């Protein structure tokens, strides 16, 4: 990238199964106020402060059209240019980076909020299936993921124990993360014995329903250095769509993720991700997805995700820590998922990871995924 873009500050709410007392605007207000006070920025209209924002929320998840009004009031949208991306917080981040690089502004606020507890997850996801061939079958993202999990485990002999190890690792890591919703001490057997929801996926292998929000300030290089002494630089950023129909692609592969990852690696001049990346925060809505996404990201060969988790390499104090934050499996709402991965990656590079800090982390990868059986992937490379 021509110019460097810096992450100045990131704030997350505590993720909770439900936050019944708070309206979405009140939920988001907390994190926006905190990130503004942390950077000393205020909303202005004379060019001296913050006048640009990109929010992220979904009309389906907020249960109304024009759901960006829930963010507008509290994210400085009045008589300023904000915009709302409904394809996940990571893609709102992507648009914000583009706005900074275009020279239209030198600082920008990025937010994402979602209260999954307000809606009915399965019914909202069913609306994500095309009405002509899929919707009347009653499919939701969970049943589609189960079709993908079964295909992936069959094709590459991935075992349910290996998938269970992902849950044990991530729910365990969550103990060190004050924002996480539901840390748990689990054994592989606990996971294997939890009731089956959609074979082969069991209850503990599925991301729980979650409410939460995340806010972040980005700035151009010169501005970022004035706002913080620990800026985190965006070195590579990309996303990519796969084909839509479940039967159009081999669900055991993720071509779109490999495509996005290669674009991001090229921009960041990374040739050997396994060696050059110190920590990974990826969006695993279901256990098997961490293994499959790691293959797509090029951290191991196709079909070797199972061996990777078996080797323990992706543990906290090992060569390639994956999801030290506890990942999505310990509870992060959709829409916020990608932005919280970026926030966690940035915290690692700022050395503010607390109990989950990876010592000496200099380069991090944050990943997000959207759609049916991981149709659209996002990857960004951050550096100290």
């Amino acid at each position, binding site marked *: 990238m021509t110019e460097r873009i810096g992450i100045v500050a990131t704030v997350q709410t505590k993720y909770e199964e439900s936050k019944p007392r708070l309206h979405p605007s009140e939920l988001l207000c907390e994190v926006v106020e905190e990130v503004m006070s942390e950077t000393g920025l205020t909303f202005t209209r004379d060019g001296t402060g913050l006048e640009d924002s990109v929010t992220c929320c979904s009309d389906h998840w907020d249960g109304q059209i024009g759901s960006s009004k829930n963010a507008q009031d509290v994210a400085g949208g009045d008589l300023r240019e904000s915009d709302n991306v409904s394809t996940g917080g990571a893609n709102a981040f992507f648009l914000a980076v583009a*706005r900074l690089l275009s020279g*239209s502004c030198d600082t920008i606020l990025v937010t994402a909020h979602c209260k999954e507890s307000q809606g009915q997850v399965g019914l909202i996801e069913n609306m994500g299936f095309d009405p002509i061939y899929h919707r009347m079958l009653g499919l939701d993202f969970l049943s589609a993921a189960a079709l993908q999990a079964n295909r992936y485990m069959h094709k590459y002999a991935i075992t349910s124990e290996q998938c269970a190890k992902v849950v044990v690792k991530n729910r365990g890591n969550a103990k060190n993360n004050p924002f996480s919703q539901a840390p748990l001490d689990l054994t592989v057997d606990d996971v294997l014995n939890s009731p089956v929801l959609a074979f082969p996926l069991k209850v503990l292998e599925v991301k729980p329903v979650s409410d939460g929000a995340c806010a972040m300030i980005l700035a151009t290089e010169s501005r970022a250095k004035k706002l913080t002494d620990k800026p985190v630089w965006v070195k590579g950023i990309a996303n*990519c769509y*796969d*084909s*839509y129909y479940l039967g159009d692609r081999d669900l055991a592969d993720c071509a779109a993720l490999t495509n996005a990852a290669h674009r991001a690696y090229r921009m960041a001049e990374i040739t050997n991700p396994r060696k050059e990346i110190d920590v990974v925060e990826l969006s695993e809505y279901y256990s098997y997805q961490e293994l499959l996404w790691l293959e797509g990201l090029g951290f191991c060969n196709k079909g070797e995700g199972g061996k990777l988790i078996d080797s323990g390499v992706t543990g906290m104090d090992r060569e390639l820590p994956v999801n030290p934050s506890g990942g999505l499996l310990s509870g992060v709402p959709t829409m916020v998922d990608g932005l919280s991965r970026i926030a966690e990656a940035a915290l690692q590079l700022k050395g503010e990871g607390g109990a989950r800090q990876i010592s000496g982390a200099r380069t991090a990868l944050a990943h997000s995924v*959207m759609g049916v059986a991981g149709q659209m992937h996002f990857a960004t490379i951050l550096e100290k």
Partner: protein
Amino acid sequence: MARRVAIVGIGQTPHKSRMPELDAGEMINVAVRAALEDAQLSIREIDQVLLSNMEHFEGNYFVEGMFSDSVGSYLKPGLKTQVMGTTGASMVTTAWYFVASGLFDTVLTVTYQKQHEGQSGPVLQSAAEPSYDRVLTGHSAMYIFASLAQHYMAETGCRPEHAAMVRVKAADNGRRNPFAHLKLELTVEDVLNSRVLVWPLRLLDICPTSAGACALVLASEERVRKITNKPVWIRDHIAVHQEGFTLSVMHYYPDPFPRETTREVASKKLYARNGITDPAKEIDVFEIYEPSTYGELQYMEDLGICGKGEAWKLVEKGATTLEGEVPMNPSGGVLSANAIGDCAMVRVAEAALQVRGDAGEHQIARKVNTAMAHGFGGRGYTTLHLLSKTL
């Protein structure tokens, strides 16, 4: 500084009330192929594909994934913005950012809607705050424009027949635009005799609900030279959003705490930074997003195209027709075609056609070097795009 960006490809489908012969993907594909054909590009030469609409009108969630085959985004980057009525304009601006930033050279941005496949009224009603006044409001969009009409007439002496003249002009232009939905022969009496929906708004005072898609290809300055000798440069753009926890206080007139509208704020800023002092003279043609006849008059004044209370007088003199000094909505505007997802993008597309001189039968008489497209939506958001033939 930002790389200069131009529109190099324009594609639309004809807008119609129903489109039973095509599903949403096939309809999108028609607009995409038209834009690629116009730019003489293949899908392989497109770096990023953006697709959006207002999801609940057809209910489909994550539409840019659902129709990736038809829009051409297979194994390509892209995303979707969602800002109510201004979604179409926001998707043009989003494409501009991705090209001006240097991230991509050639971006295809597409918006669409098939409103009759859902229930527009109830969906619009869902815009109100669910925990508060959603159960009260009728189809609030109609109510908003009824309030606007009441107060525009009270403040400016405008009478219903002037609004009817706006509708007659829209019909005359719409008949000349192959992509417009409504092709009507109308007189002022026809408009005044159409049935009242929400007093004082009559059926012909407001826009139809339509199905249609619009696609634009934007390219960076280096790429533009290789693609076309008729680029339409995006000289400037601005979006001004607005607070609005719930619909009620925000939208009825008069605002109990009056201040400049977002149209005034946006247009003043845009004109100032482009050295425009008399928009009616320095901008050759306007494509305004007018969901109601009275709206076109009010928005002309808010956008500084004429003084307060002057708009209906201009319409009375016939100054806003294709041959007039201040041509407004040569395409027939939203009154002639309203697929809410692509409305604000169609304004930009039609303004660009005027700059290129390619609008055919509805090309304005006056020579066009500069055009302005306006987008409206949500809690009174305003988007403006200033297009020009030369840099």
